[in-house]
């Protein structure tokens, strides 16, 4: 996966000054946290379901190899084909080969973060296969040649005027000459254009929210209905998905269905939840005759048995993004990865290397809101801290800060020395306070980050310990 996470500071700086983005983000944060809260309050069993979901995923991960084989058996028994891809390149080639094998010229695609991760669409397009994103948000950013800024609302960084301009720029070339201003009209125009694409496509590509091991079923969740049109109309359906998506039974999937939409957008359930098992049956009235599933590893198995294993529980609901004050400050593009927010800060270093994505797990206050709302209780701050540990071990952390931290750690080993240092600092503040007033407004070095935006009140009384010693 190509990432530009090293540009985090530069891009986030731009984002902080982008008033349109700030408006979108503030709306997203307020709206979704409130809606999730209401949905949670509406279901007394919500937290119990979270515990159960966590346990189900843990059970699956602890038995993953056997579960994958069991899933494969069932898929093949139902007439589908299973392909295994160790990395992104293999996955892309498998999909391309299937498309070429059926002579595909156009492909419709429903939303799938794994296909973003493996950069599938550019690969198919480079081989002359027109690939159309059909999720409205994905369609918009495909027209704009952008990456998703949010894992379930990929065009959330744009307002309707920007979308209207994009539509006019592209759609006027195919006879839609009206400049639209209303959301409903934009939706209607996209509906009309994409309907033709659905009907004409040779292959439909989807992701999967869950893979049911017991029956070889894939579960797809959407609100738009684009996944059903993508998977039901063309003669070939290809599912591209991560190996961690296994869930044992329909009973277990039910638990996740109850959590997913509520966690994501505060809905009771998404509009459409499809359980697809194999290709069209002999007498079926519709459905694809070819059904392929590409199981993608791409770094996932490396997380098993490590301190990062909990991350494999993730169901991509986006609750952690929607509640993260850092994500809501800088938006998704700053992360330089298709996975943003807290889940992206843990996953991106795994997929692309901590040397390239070091900013992401560092750009967190560890406020813990992400963990608080995670439907599968992933301890995201803890996992981000583990990345900081890796970074520290490899000497990748910025040097001034690293030196400061080492000195501080060292000082703490010698209480007497520590007390002298604190007393010295307190003495300095006392002197500063007596001569220059009680507020420091321009600190040097690392501390300049503090006074760039705020003042620091000095204490003129000496340290607590020195006063306490006098008292006793």
């Amino acid at each position: 996966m190509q990432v530009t996470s090293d540009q985090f500071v530069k891009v986030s700086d731009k984002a902080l000054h982008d008033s349109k983005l700030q408006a979108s983000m503030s709306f997203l944060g307020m709206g979704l946290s409130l809606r999730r809260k209401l949905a949670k309050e509406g279901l007394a069993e919500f937290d119990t379901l979270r515990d159960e979901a966590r346990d189900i995923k843990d059970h699956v991960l602890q038995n993953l190899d056997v579960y994958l084989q069991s899933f494969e058996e069932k898929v093949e028994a139902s007439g589908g084909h299973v392909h295994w891809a160790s990395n992104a390149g293999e996955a892309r080639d498998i999909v391309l080969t299937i498309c070429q094998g059926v002579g595909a010229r156009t492909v419709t695609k429903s939303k799938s973060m794994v296909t973003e991760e493996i950069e599938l669409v550019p690969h198919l397009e480079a081989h002359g296969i027109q690939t159309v994103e059909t999720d409205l948000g994905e369609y918009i950013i495909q027209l704009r040649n952008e990456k998703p800024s949010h894992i379930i609302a990929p065009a959330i960084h744009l307002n309707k005027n920007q979308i209207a301009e994009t539509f006019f720029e592209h759609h006027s070339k195919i006879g839609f000459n009206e400049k639209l201003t209303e959301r409903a009209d934009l939706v209607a125009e996209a509906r009309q254009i994409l309907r033709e694409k659905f009907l004409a496509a040779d292959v439909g590509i989807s992701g999967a929210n869950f893979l049911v091991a017991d029956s070889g079923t894939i579960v797809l969740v959407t609100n738009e209905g684009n996944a059903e049109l993508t998977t039901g109309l063309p003669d070939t359906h290809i599912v591209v998905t991560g190996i961690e998506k296994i869930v044992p039974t329909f009973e277990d999937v039910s638990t996740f269905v109850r959590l997913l939409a509520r966690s994501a957008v505060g809905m009771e359930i998404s509009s459409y939840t499809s359980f697809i098992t194999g290709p069209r049956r002999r007498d079926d009235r519709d459905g694809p005759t070819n059904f392929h599933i590409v199981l993608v590893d791409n770094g996932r198995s490396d997380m098993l048995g490590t301190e990062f294993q909990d991350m494999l529980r993730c169901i991509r609901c986006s609750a952690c993004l929607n509640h993260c004050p850092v994500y809501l400050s800088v938006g998704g593009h700053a992360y330089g990865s298709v996975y943003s927010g807290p889940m992206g800060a843990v996953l991106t270093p795994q997929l692309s290397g901590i040397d390239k994505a070091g900013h992401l797990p560092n750009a967190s206050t560890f406020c813990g809101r992400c963990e608080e709302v995670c439907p599968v209780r992933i301890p995201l701050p803890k996992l981000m801290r583990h990345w900081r540990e890796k970074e520290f071990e490899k000497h990748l952390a910025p040097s001034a800060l690293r030196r400061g931290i080492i000195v501080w750690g060292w000082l703490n080993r010698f209480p007497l020395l520590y007390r002298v240092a604190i007393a010295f600092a307190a003495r300095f503040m006392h002197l500063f306070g007596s001569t220059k007033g009680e507020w420091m407004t321009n600190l040097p070095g690392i501390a300049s980050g503090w006074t760039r935006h705020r003042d620091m009140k000095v204490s003129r009384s000496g340290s607590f310990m020195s006063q306490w010693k006098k008292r006793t």
Partner: protein
Amino acid sequence: MEETNMSSREHLLKAISVRLAATSSPEDRRSNIDSWLSMHSRNTIPARGKKSHAELVELFTTMLTMVQGSVIQVDSLQKVPEAISDYLEQNNLGEKVCLDEEAEQLGIPWRTDSNLEFVTWQAKRSISVGITACYGAVAETGSLVVCSSNTHAITMNFLSETNIVILDVRNLVGVYEEIWDRLRTASGMLLPRDLTLISSPSCTGDIEMVLEYGVHGPKRLHVIIVGSAVSEYEPAI
């Protein structure tokens, strides 16, 4: 390709089993999953789905109406054509409808007792009004259960601008798990190619997070419940 595919498969499975070896053997894992899969044990089921059938019918209606679906209840199959005519008239949708084979076979006096005008369903065509039957419905989230089959093209549920679904009240249950049980009893969990829970008309929040209905699938979803709540219904445990 077969060969590289095989090697990727083994490579991948080996990578996983090496990681898991520290905590269990493959035999342990096989028996772990065999016991889990054979039990189909239910996880926590929301209390809201465990009610009398009459309350579930009400809950289903409330849930679906909350998200722009519409629901009416008629007491017999004979009343369905009239109910559809009324709905089409109220919403100014004309009289042309496309009737699904499964709905055709429900025993509704479609042709004798209505002024509806029937157009033939053709695969991969958009249609204005599609009338379909369904496998059942789940009250806890106001979800219809529709299945692909030899009498039902499931894409019809998505290609219709207005989807009218006829639901036999006896197939309305409280929670998802009851549907899975019914499938198991009826067919040994022989699943249709596509079973979809439809819980509202098609919608999107992708532009400024404001919900707009009718993006790719139906703009309108109308459910006609046939019959009255069943007194002998036993709520899920």
